[in-house]
């Protein structure tokens, strides 16, 4: 340590601290001590097994003590008068700019002489860059399969048995009135989202469906619709027996079960497609074909089609 520093220190030490400065120093010291204690306590808590809430509090105390201490310590600096600084121009000015443009044009000049040849070459360069750009896009096509007809079809086929989440076939008449169940095609992966359907048993004689639709409702009571909302694709998980409506919990679209699951409130625009059902010789529910239309939200290539099998 050289002499100058020594003197400087003494000079500083000689200045008596004001009452406020002493208070600030004391507060700062308390804050830093809190931070130290919290840090030490954090060690203890961690090595004795950890506890999320305590860790949070101790972290907050350690960081907060440090932060508030620093702010109070710096407070005496903040009392310093405001200073003024010139907001000098940060642009180089018109002249320098012109010089830049000029030198740029001068350097590139030889390339750009002869108007006709220039524009021809520049166009070719653009073409080459464009072709390369398109070629570079090609690997991106490997990111996924082509949509094809995948969105239009599900795993339901004619004669496929209807099973519950546990994979067991559903026997006709096994549901109570106003009971409902999520069902899948037998043997299909339940995590393939597009096949999920809701089987609902409604009281006899209430359904107001066309002949064609009723042909897929065994007993006039066991009706099934796609469980995928036609709006944004959420599972339409809520059944309100009082109004016989299905409600999507995501955006509150509501569908009229008795009238072909036409939407009557909310953002959905299309009915939930119906799954035509029948009963096989053993009394189990089976599908008579795929859904009456593509399931889920609208998409551009969605093609209208009749009931396919």
């Amino acid at each position, binding site marked *: 340590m*050289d002499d100058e520093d020594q003197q*400087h220190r003494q000079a500083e030490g000689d200045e008596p601290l004001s009452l406020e400065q002493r208070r600030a120093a004391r507060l700062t010291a308390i804050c830093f001590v809190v931070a130290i204690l919290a840090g030490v306590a954090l060690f203890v808590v961690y090595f004795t097994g950890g506890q999320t809430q305590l*860790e949070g509090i101790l972290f907050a105390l350690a960081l907060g003590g440090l932060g508030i201490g620093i702010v109070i310590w710096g407070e005496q600096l903040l009392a310093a008068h405001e200073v003024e*600084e010139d907001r000098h121009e940060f642009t180089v000015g018109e002249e320098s700019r012109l010089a830049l443009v000029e030198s740029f044009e001068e350097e590139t000049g030889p390339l750009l002489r002869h108007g006709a040849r220039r524009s021809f070459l520049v166009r070719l360069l653009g073409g080459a860059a464009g072709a390369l750009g398109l070629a570079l896009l090609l690997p991106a096509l490997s990111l996924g*399969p082509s949509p094809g007809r995948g969105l239009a079809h599900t795993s339901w086929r004619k004669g496929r048995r209807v099973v519950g989440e546990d994979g067991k076939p559903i026997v006709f008449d096994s549901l109570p009135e106003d009971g409902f169940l999520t069902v899948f095609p037998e043997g299909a992966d339940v995590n393939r989202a597009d096949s999920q359907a809701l089987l609902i048993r409604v009281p006899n004689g209430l359904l107001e469906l066309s002949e064609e639709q009723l042909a897929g409702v065994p007993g006039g009571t066991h009706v099934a619709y796609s469980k995928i909302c036609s709006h944004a694709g959420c*599972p339409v998980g809520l059944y309100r027996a009082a109004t016989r409506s299905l409600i999507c919990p995501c955006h509150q679209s509501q569908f009229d079960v008795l009238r072909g699951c036409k939407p009557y409130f909310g953002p959905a625009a299309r009915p939930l497609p119906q799954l035509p059902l029948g009963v096989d010789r053993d009394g189990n529910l089976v599908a008579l074909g795929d859904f009456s239309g593509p399931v889920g*939200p609208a998409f551009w290539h969605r093609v209208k089609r009749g009931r396919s099998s």
Partner: protein
Amino acid sequence: MSMVRRSVQYLDERLGTASFARKTLRKVFPDHWSFLLGEIALFALVVLVFTGVFLTFFYTPDARPTIYQGPYEPMQGKEVSAAYESVLRLSFQVRSGLLMRQVHHWAALVFVAAVVVHLCRIFFTGAFRRPREVNWLVGVALLLLAMGEGFTGYSLPDDLLSGIGLRIFYSVVLAIPLVGSWAAYLLFGGEFPAPDIISRLFVFHVMLLPALLLGLVGLHLVILVLQKHTQFPGRGRTERNVVGKRLWPQQTFKSVGLLFVTTAMLAALGGLAQINPIWQYGPYVPFNVTSPAQPDWYIGWLDGALRLAGPWSFDVFGFPVSEMFWPAILFPGIAFGTLTLWPWIERRFNRDQAEHHLLDRPRDAPLRSAVGMAGLWVFFVMFLEGGNDILAVMLNVSVENITRILQAAFVVGPFVVGAATYAICRSLRKSQIHPARATAGVELRRTASGGYETVPLEPTSSE
């Protein structure tokens, strides 16, 4: 002292940075509480980076199914994805893992909130005007990236709630005219739920988006330093100077203090306030759903937009245009397009080409303030509608009526709010109350004849 001198000498002889460092340390920053909002966003980002790195050491970006065998009993023996399992392990078996996860999630919410409030400050004070248009663009890009980071991160645990959010996002992509189904298949790797999406989201969340985000934050700050900070008008403040405190030591003490206090708040939140308890939601199963289901707050407006819109779907040459196109693609496009282009839109109206370093108060630009408030109102209504099912239960009003009321508020509200803001700004401007100037007031004088007279005082500053 001599150590400082030695290190300065060492660095200057090798890097020649002493004059630059001196200029930087002496740099003057104007002082106003609202200038700290952006700093809070920056500090939340610091916390996000640190906690996020910790989380990556434990997270498995893998959708493959596995049987849960950890200590959380209700989930034992159930089939969950490896991603979900790794987040449960992080939460229950890694010491201070849950704290780090919760601090990370809270920091994300605070980060986007601070960005939005900072954006409002910039907007309502006209800080985007020439020469700061470029930094405005960088800022809007940062907001979008922040929301993208939030949504991808929220989806990573592969829990039921985030899976539903992902399903909705897939449907939104599907609703893009012409290329929707292609875009959705390429992005998700096939028909939803394709297993690739989890690992792709991970790459977006920890590499692509953070690289862009941090790069743009750097650019944001470099431009800020180059152009110098704006300041509010007041005594001695002109378009040609900067009045405030120096970077060292005043601003540094303040900012470092704020960094630690922000972090402390986030640590307290992460330790004490439970957030995203994915073990309660369960793993994502395509045919399960929770109710009520709300996303994180900064996506709430978009979910609300989807609930607010009507069943407006129609065919163009036999191709269906989804009802989701309006609320989820067209509206956000217009809203964020307007936000992005605002500096140029405003210039079309007021033909103001001048450079501005002195800030407006909101009342100084009634039209801008009116547009801004109308825009905030629209987003606020959508945000409320995003919780229409919760509001319905709380207020004992049917969901249908909540939606109808908010639909009306969405259409009529912006005009009412805009007009009211305009009127308030005009009258405030007329009243001449100026927070930056000392209150002028009146002086009471005794006249020679023994009576009294009042003399209006001059404002204490000239602009």
